[in-house]
């Protein structure tokens, strides 16, 4: 393990801990939008975690997974926003 990998994995660990903290907001709510915001933030963190681990283990193909995850994360927010209103005018 090089120092560089240690730094990156340490960062990934920090992001994991922070994501777990945010789960509190997903559980508590109180509104649907609060949960969506929190899940979106967790999704962003997971993209970062994937990228950091990819860099730490020298596995560039995992970055493609991060890109797809970011796309899905965005779609999730938009879709839920749209469906909680069911008006078709959210975006």
């Amino acid at each position, binding site marked *: 393990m090089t*120092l*560089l990998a240690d*730094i*990156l994995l*340490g*960062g990934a660990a*920090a*992001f994991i801990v*922070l*994501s777990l*903290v*945010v789960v*509190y*907001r997903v559980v508590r709510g109180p*509104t649907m*939008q*609060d949960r*969506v*915001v*929190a899940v*979106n*933030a967790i999704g*962003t*963190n997971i*993209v*970062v975690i994937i*990228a*950091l681990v*990819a*860099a*730490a283990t020298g596995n*560039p193909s995992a*970055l*493609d997974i*991060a*890109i797809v995850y*970011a*796309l899905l*994360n*965005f779609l999730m*927010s*938009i879709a*839920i*926003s*749209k469906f*909680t*209103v069911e*008006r078709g*005018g*959210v*975006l």
Partner: protein
Amino acid sequence: MTPRELAVLALVAGGAFFAFVAAVGLLRLPDVYTRTHGASKSDTLGAGLALAAVAVTFGFDLSSVKAALLVLFMFITNPTAAHAITRAAADQGIEPWTTDEEGEE
């Protein structure tokens, strides 16, 4: 420590700090609008810094381009998602929290 390791350390630390701010903001702030502030801004910058660290690690490589693409993508989508969510909230008639209401809660 090489300069590159220093740069990566600084970027990862900065990213983790802003992700921390986002998490604290999500927990502490009083309503969905203010929470979205924390999440949309701090998390985007936190992710941007951490992904910059990834790009620096890979050096001049296709992977760095991908990391940059990811940053760009996040800078476009995160505010859009935040906007969609708050608009949905406003549409459902969720009133923004203001300092006047403090006494009632």
